[in-house]
């Protein structure tokens, strides 16, 4: 029976090649995007799931509230580590660790030197109690109990001790940072599964002082928080998180910052479940200092929605085409029923067909999946691949997906078709009232709503992106570049040498010192006090550091006062927003007043024109430019001049200078316009993703429409014959045939406009600067969709309208 069903199903699939093709393509697009997006989502949910009792592992993070602003920091203040180590009720074990960085590591025995090793942490044995590592050599109980002991991961052990097996490595000595002799106590296997714990070198926490970190057993710096100072703990079984939270709240209150300027600031410790770390928590922080990827729940959700919609579109196609075909299949069902088939058997047969088509679509989608994934490579974290599809979970997932698709798309056609009464079918009375029409129209409208929403959203998101890129930020972004000098090489002479050599390059019109460029994602801010009418007010301000020609290099004009006298004097040039924030409507007036930073009085000597110091997501904030602190500037900024033909040449020459002075470093010349573009990477990937989704949605919908048109026109061949005999011309017939479909597209447009407007509105809310949601975007997308639909329908209706009525009216 079963094989018989499959055989018959296969033959009827072959018989209707066009429909089967459309079905398979539609379904496979839906399946393919689901599979790819599924793999992406799975990837992000597979991080650190392998630790034993992972659901009992938590991290403490810090939340700052300052007035209305909230900031979070994934680290904690160091003394909190001691509180945890001394014991907090409900905490089974606590593992503090600190990120660190090793400038040199020497293996004297083999005469090897390694520089700038990242991914190191200072940790103690508790770290390995909480997180599951596979010990290849050494004792996990005592490995980090003394100062100057280190545990390496296999990859690091192989790097530092080439050609030695792990057991030989134990007990060897490495010299860290030129002076610290450290004994290797253990080697752990590299984590094979996805993990945010990308640490490869574990120095004992008790050696913190030797590596320039504070010792948590003695530190009292409750008001310093560094994102590298991590505190993990595992709660005892049955212990309650709120209890620990309330203890943390007590500690936060007890150790509140008592400085007068911090009177309005609050600092809270927050407990974050380990499983949330990969998703960045509420503030979207990276999991750790050395992380290069943070999963964005919102993005994952949108991705899942896109996959769902594409899948639904494929299913809608299927239902549409199959219930439309009902008429052609009716005779077969009638015969089967008179031969004794029960309704159930007919249903089974149709599910058999659906199953085969789904299977074909799945195979096709697995073939296409790698290509689709490659399209998104640019904005996906590295390490993501489709290997998960061939694991047990993956195969199970795919089977589940197939089953779902099979049911979704097979259910309606199977039950509609199986309901046919044999006698009416055999008598030929069934064609009068075609009940599926309304459903098919609804589904077509649904498809076009989805496609239309995608089209409009893509246009508007792209428009916003274009707007952001084009908008004048208030400074020069074209042909300005900068280079950050190595922060760990403090030699002032080298810096000067680079600066002077760059200055001598022909064609450069401005060269200046500074740290960050005027617009960047790393902006330091500080609280300044200002006295007005005897009252002290506090104003948060972002601080830029640069020499006296820094503003000129970036084309930021002064509108009042003067530039600072020299590069290190305590004078501020503030922006207009700052002046307004402390109560001066007229920028002229603020010149000559002064503010206080801690205890130092600093004069405001000039006002610069406002510019956007961050991406256009945020408003312009109060800002002050000052000279360098004691150790000078870390970056050189230069204007490439007015001759575009010289630019590549100049950049080459700058790079030559850098290499000659810092041969060991890889320094990069960054362009201001690239930096600005970098602000909008997320938007750019959104546009790319939307483009794909839109293309696929349009493709599926048009396939569906085509199927429907083919079916409808076939049914109306006779009617068209009669009309032609009665004198209708081609144009009239085409209009007659297309009208029905264009109305559907029109209805879909009407539904899609408010939906897409709402969605884009929600999205664009997060930007301080918004492009207009112009009516012409909606209209153009609507017209575009109508034209596409018209082309699809027109091709077929034209053919039908051209059929000679003698053919169509001949009675068999």
């Amino acid at each position, binding site marked *: 029976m079963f094989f*018989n069903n499959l*055989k018959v199903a296969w033959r009827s699939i072959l*018989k209707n090649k066009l429909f089967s093709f459309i079905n398979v393509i539609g379904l496979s697009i839906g399946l393919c995007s689901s599979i790819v997006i599924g793999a992406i989502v799975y990837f992000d949910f597979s991080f650190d799931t392998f630790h034993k009792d992972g659901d009992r592992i938590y991290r403490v993070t810090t939340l700052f509230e300052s007035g209305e602003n909230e900031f979070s920091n994934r680290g904690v203040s160091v003394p909190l580590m001691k509180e945890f180590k001394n014991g907090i009720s409900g905490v089974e074990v606590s593992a503090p660790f600190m990120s660190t960085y090793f400038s040199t590591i020497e293996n004297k025995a083999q005469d090897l030197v390694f520089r700038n090793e990242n991914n190191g942490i200072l940790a103690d044995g508790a770290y390995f109690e909480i997180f599951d590592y596979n010990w290849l050599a050494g004792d996990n109980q005592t490995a980090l109990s003394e100062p100057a002991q280190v545990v390496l991961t296999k990859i690091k052990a192989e790097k530092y001790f080439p050609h030695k097996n792990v057991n030989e490595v134990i007990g060897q000595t490495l010299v860290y940072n030129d002076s610290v002799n450290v004994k290797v106590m253990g080697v752990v296997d590299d984590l094979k599964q996805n993990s945010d714990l990308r640490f490869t070198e574990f120095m004992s926490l008790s050696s913190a002082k030797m590596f320039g970190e504070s010792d948590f057993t003695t530190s009292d710096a409750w008001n310093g928080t560094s994102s590298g100072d991590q505190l993990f703990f595992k709660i005892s079984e049955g212990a309650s998180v709120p209890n620990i939270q309330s203890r943390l709240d007590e500690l936060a209150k007890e150790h509140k910052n008592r400085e007068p300027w911090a009177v309005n600031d609050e600092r809270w410790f927050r407990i974050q479940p380990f499983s949330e770390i990969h998703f960045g928590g509420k503030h979207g922080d990276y999991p750790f200092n050395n992380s290069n990827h943070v999963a964005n729940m919102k993005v994952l959700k949108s991705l899942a929605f896109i996959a769902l919609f594409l899948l639904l579109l494929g299913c809608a196609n299927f239902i549409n085409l199959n219930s439309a075909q009902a008429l052609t299949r009716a005779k077969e069902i009638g015969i*089967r029923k008179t*031969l004794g088939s029960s309704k159930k058997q007919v249903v089974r047969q149709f599910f058999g067909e659906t199953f085969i088509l789904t299977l074909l679509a799945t195979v096709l989608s697995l073939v296409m999946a790698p290509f689709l994934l490659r399209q998104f490579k640019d904005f996906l974290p590295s390490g993501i691949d489709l290997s998960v599809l061939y694991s047990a979970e993956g195969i199970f997932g795919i089977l589940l997906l197939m089953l779902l698709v099979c049911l979704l798309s097979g259910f309606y056609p199977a039950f509609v078709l199986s309901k046919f009464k044999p006698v009416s079918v055999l008598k030929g009375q069934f064609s009068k009232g075609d009940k599926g029409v309304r459903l098919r129209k609804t589904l077509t409208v649904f498809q076009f709503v989805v496609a239309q929403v995608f089209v409009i959203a893509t246009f508007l998101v792209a428009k916003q992106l274009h707007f952001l890129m084009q908008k004048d930020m208030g400074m020069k972004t074209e042909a300005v570049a900068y280079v950050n000098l190595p922060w760990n090489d403090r030699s002032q002479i080298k810096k000067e040498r680079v600066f002077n050599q760059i200055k001598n390059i022909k064609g450069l019109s401005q060269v200046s010192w500074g740290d960050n460029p005027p617009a960047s994602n790393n902006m330091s801010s500080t609280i300044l006090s200002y006295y007005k009418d005897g009252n002290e007010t506090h104003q948060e301000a972002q601080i830029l550091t640069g020499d006296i020609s820094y503003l000129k290099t970036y084309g930021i004009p002064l509108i009042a006062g003067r530039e600072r006298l020299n590069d290190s004097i305590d004078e501020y040039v503030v922006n207009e927003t700052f002046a307004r924030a402390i109560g001066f409507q007229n920028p002229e007036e603020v010149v000559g007043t002064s503010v206080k930073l801690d205890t130092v009085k600093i004069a405001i000597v000039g006002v610069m024109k406002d510019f956007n110091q961050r991406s256009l997501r945020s408003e312009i904030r109060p800002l002050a430019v000052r000279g360098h602190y004691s150790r000078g500037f870390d970056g050189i900024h230069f204007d490439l001049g007015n001759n575009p033909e010289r630019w590549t040449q100049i950049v080459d020459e700058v790079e030559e200078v850098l290499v000659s002075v810092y041969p060991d470093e890889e320094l990069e010349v960054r362009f201001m316009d690239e930096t600005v573009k970098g602000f909008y990477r997320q938007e750019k990937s959104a546009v790319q993703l939307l483009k794909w989704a839109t293309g696929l949605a349009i493709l599926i919908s048009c396939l569906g429409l085509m199927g429907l048109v083919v079916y409808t026109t076939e049914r109306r061949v006779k009617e068209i014959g009669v009309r032609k005999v009665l004198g209708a011309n081609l144009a009239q017939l085409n209009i007659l045939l297309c009208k029905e479909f264009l109305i559907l597209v029109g209805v879909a447009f009407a539904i899609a406009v408010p939906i897409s407007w709402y969605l884009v509105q929600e999205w664009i809310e997060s930007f301080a600067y918004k492009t207009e949601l112009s009516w012409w975007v909606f209209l153009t997308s609507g017209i575009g969709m109508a034209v596409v639909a018209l082309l699809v329908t027109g091709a077929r209706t034209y053919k039908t309208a051209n059929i000679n009525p003698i053919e169509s009216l001949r009675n068999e």
Partner: protein
Amino acid sequence: MLLQLNNIFKWVTTGGQRIFLLKDINLEVEEGEFISIMGPSGSGKSTLLNVIGMLDTFDEGEYNFMDESVHSLKEKHRSNLYKQYIGFVFQSYHLLDELTVKENLEMPLIYKKIKGSERKAMVADMLDRFNIVGKKDLFPAQLSGGQQQLVGVARALISNPKLILADEPTGNLNSKQGEEIMELFKQLNREGVTIIQVTHSEKNAEYGSRIINLLDGRMV
């Protein structure tokens, strides 16, 4: 007695008026009979045949088939009943286009849940009996009308029905092919199969042992 129809009425209501398709039909059919139903177009021949075949319902009256009262049976039982005892032959053959001759013959057996090996034997037997062994792997479209109808009859017969209902079995055939089919029916009838056919042709009706004439849904 194979079947009995008592005061069967069937109607449709159009514009508030009842139009009778069947009106007070009383009919008894004994096993081994060969009945021809005749009458002009629209007289209710096919409707009557469909009612007898349990493909169609009626509005009033009683229908007993082999001591089961069909009018009080549920749809499922009804279909089991006709699945077991009735074979259908149609004017336009109604073979399944995507199945070969062999598979078409097999189909009713599959629905009767007969085992594969047994099915094969029965199909082979039937192919042999109708002399169409050479055509077993062809699709209906590759056969002539007469051959298709031959397959149609073979398919109706394969599950050993007590009753064959044939709705103008020769309607789409030329006279020679038609004659062959009618001869086949006659022979089957001699072998004990009860046959009820609807026909327009006096000549074909003569093959039967009894002729029923219908006019406007009434037996005359």
